[in-house]
């Protein structure tokens, strides 16, 4: 029994040392790469979204264009990827679509899959996807918060590959 108590004490001491150490690792790895997993952390929700006297909120959209030159269908990411849980959609967008230019490489397989997804969601023969990131500015007014202005922070195009045209590789 005494030995067992000692083992349990050792477990507690190890855990009490490990928890802050792993938190430090999460911070360092998270800064340079992305948040490690599994880790004993909760979300920090650190951002404050403040600009001057108001708030700035980023909003991503996916615009689906057809080859006929019709106006695009503008969708929220959660509308384009309805199978994903909403809590994962912003992270999915950030990781795969809202990255810097060098990381926006999509394989033909991915472009075919995006085509399928676009067709499934819009029921249109999609040709292009525009990934758009806008910044909305809100400020205080006598009757509550109001959106002052919107600016486009990022826009780029992904040329989709039709399932029936495997030779098209752009």
């Amino acid at each position, binding site marked *: 029994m005494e030995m067992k108590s000692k083992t*349990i004490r050792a477990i507690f001491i190890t855990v009490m040392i490990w928890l802050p150490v792993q938190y430090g690792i999460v911070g360092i790895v998270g800064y340079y790469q992305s948040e490690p997993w599994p880790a004993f*952390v909760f979300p920090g929700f650190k951002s404050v979204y403040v600009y001057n006297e108001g708030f700035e*909120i980023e909003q991503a959209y996916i615009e689906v264009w057809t080859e006929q030159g019709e106006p695009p269908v503008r969708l929220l990411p959660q509308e384009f990827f309805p199978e994903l849980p*909403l809590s994962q959609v912003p992270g999915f967008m950030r990781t795969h679509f809202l990255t810097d230019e060098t990381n926006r490489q999509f394989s033909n397989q*991915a472009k075919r899959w995006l085509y399928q997804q676009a067709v499934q969601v819009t029921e249109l023969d999609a040709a292009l996807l525009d990934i758009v990131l806008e910044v909305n500015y809100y400020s205080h007014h006598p009757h509550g918060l109001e959106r002052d202005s919107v600016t486009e922070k990022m826009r780029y195009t992904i040329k989709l590959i039709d399932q029936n045209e495997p030779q098209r590789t752009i």
Partner: protein
Amino acid sequence: MSLSERFNRWIFESWSVSAEGLGLLRIISALFILFFLIPGYGTSHFNFLADLPPDFYAPPPGPMMLFESFPSAAIFQWVHTILLFSLFAMLLGYRTKLTSILTGVSILILQGIIFSVGKVNHEILVAVVPVVMAFSNWGAAFSIDSVRRGHNRQTENWPLTLLALFIGFMMFTAGFPKILGGWLDPTTQATQGHLLNQFFVRERQAMLAEFMVQFDSVLFWELLDWITVLFEIGFLAAVFSPKWFRRFVAFAVLFHFSTMMTLNIAFLPNFLAYAVFLNWDGIYQSNLRLYRRLTGKRGERSKKRSALLLSAVVGLLFFLLNRLSSMDLVLRESDLTLHEVVFLFFALFVVMWIGIKKCA
């Protein structure tokens, strides 16, 4: 009292639960996981992930980096099946320690795959609870193990202290970055900013969200920023006093309830961990008294039967709630689910009821 003695007392004497209390906790926890906390959204979600091209496989730094793409749908089904079998065994108390650990590990594997889309959700407590509680001998009563020859009825209290330590530390990790991020700066109203972000970007617009978006009081929002940070940081200190820890858990319920009402985030997985710190001996005794009053039976068998009846009623209620929730009859425009709302209202009711009882 020496520091070593105080350390020992904290580990071994902070919490005390009987075999019957732990038995009830095990059954209710298994049912809760089974109906509401299994990672993922079923076959269609697993098939979606299995079909994703390797481009979209972005595992978080860690063991999932050993793989290069999402596994096939068959692997998902295998892990899911192992999880269901181990969870059922845990529910019935069959080889409870082993199956509780297996439950936790299967949950971790499923979570790991699901989080490899490029976003980690902080739901690790769903796996931690069965693994840690496996060492409490929560299969000592109301279980198949308890009727096997030579079974051990002695329970362990230290896993509750360990779980409290995990919760307290994890809460601290939620509060600390907020200080660095500027939440305590009186010129920033961070909570209000997050509300706007959830409301406009993620379209979380149910419950009181719309009302709160228009509620533009700097003092109110700044106060919320400070309360949030103090509460999350303070949770770690509360770990060393069971009385204070229970108060913080009660406050956590109020916190999550208000978060659900405004930001439409329920954080249901945490409630599995919070529920461990309910007075399970008291629940067992109250249920036994009620059973004996209703049936007039006083014998030794009434102990088991009362617990089994309660488990059956809870199982049935969870099943009905699960079915109702999956029908999407209400909250259609929200990613909040009916069962999340029901559980958070119920938790709020429990906390208020305990509070009123303590004050009376």
